[in-house]
């Protein structure tokens, strides 16, 4: 399974992920997105990561294996670094 991490320093609770990957994400009591144990379609998870306006979702593991088909496209920008 891919590892999915939601960075709560970045998440703003926009909830785009809950639409992009139905079931895979849910907002917690603070309104922040939490990954729900899967399995979920890899393409949905990739879509959720892409759709996040805050770039808060990271899907790790080999992207080819998990259906990220946009080979050659630029990586998502890194979150702000301290």
């Amino acid at each position, binding site marked *: 399974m891919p590892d999915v991490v939601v960075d709560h*320093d970045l998440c*703003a609770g*926009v*909830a785009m992920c809950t639409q992009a990957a139905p079931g895979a994400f849910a907002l917690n009591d603070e309104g922040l997105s939490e990954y729900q144990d899967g399995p979920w379609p890899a393409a949905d998870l990739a879509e959720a990561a892409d759709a996040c*306006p805050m770039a808060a979702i990271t899907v790790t593991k080999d992207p080819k294996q998990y259906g990220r088909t946009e080979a050659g496209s630029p990586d*998502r920008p890194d979150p*702000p670094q301290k």
Partner: protein
Amino acid sequence: MDTGLDDLLSDEAVNHPAAYYEKLRAEDPVHWNPRWNGWVLTSYADVAAGFRDHQRLSSDRFAGPFGQQLSAVSSDYQALFGFLSKFFVWKDQPYHTRVRALVNRAFTPRSVEVLRPRVRALVAELTGALRGAGETDFLAGFAFTLPVVVIGDYLGVPEEGRQDLRRWAEDLGAVIFVSGNDADRLRKGEEAMEQLAAFLRPVIAARRAEPREDLLSGMVAAQERGDFLSEDEVLANAILMVFAGHETTMNLLANGMVAFAGFPAQWDRLRAGPALAATATEEILRYDGPIRAMARWAREPLRIRDHEIAAGDRVLLAQYAANHDPAQFADPETVDVTRWPNRHTTFGQGIHTCLGAPLARLEAQEAFTALAAAFPRFEVAEETLRYNPNIVSRSLTRLHLTFREA
């Protein structure tokens, strides 16, 4: 509680918001303001929770207390209210969520990243023009131009007419950002809306006939798929993006320069470390972002601390106050370009979080980095900075700067 702080447009509230909101937050963080006729929330916790509570705190300007106010005049200003009523920001679910999902894809960090080379080139051009220029009008010469060209290109709006956008945006802003019914303001807003619609309508028709790689073409295609309900809906949300795409970013850039002028050591740090562009931009958004406060209204009764908010009550989420709350941010009156985490409320939070946030961030990162690299010093030429008297936006009336290359 009578705090003596009920004039949201007082000189102190408009020109010295840190001092004003600090008093209000300390005295009465959930304050009934009889003058504004609503609750004013000034603590970080309450403002953030308010943004996330979209179920109970509505953004719908055409229902509830705001709707009553508008319906009294809306028949006299049909273009204005016809289009405003289709702005998805002013809607609740499900309309908001449907339209947001349609346009979200174009504004994700990955999508806007393709604009970075174009933004960088434009910033270089605008920065070059400041060299040796002496005192310059930063709002007109830089802060307005950058975002309006970027959003204009992205949407696919022709270059001619972009200069008119600033006036239209000002006239629309006077309606959008200010509550109350002032006939002159509404008449100007109606004219601006008609002119914007007349400007964009033929562009939309042209994209329908001959699609290009731009956002308007994408929106037209979405309508043809049945995702947008009508051409007017496309037009309304294109107007929203033209408006939202530059007004706020302009003010972010201007407010940022004023902030850096007050903290020159932070300018030096950014100059030495362009890798700080991202955190520096978040800190400017926190310290003096372009939005001061956003209004909501209660769809149902709710309790905030020991206050009962009744159904139909207006609630003002004071972002500037939240962003300066010492309970959330250490040394809130100090600019620290390395501050992280920095969960400011300037873009809002929850489902209405600013759609354009990734684009605004990109533009500000590029602008601040390039200006810091080019100019070790700059001075604010204004003796006294004045801000437009406005509850929602934090916008300077004028900002002249003098940039120094050594």
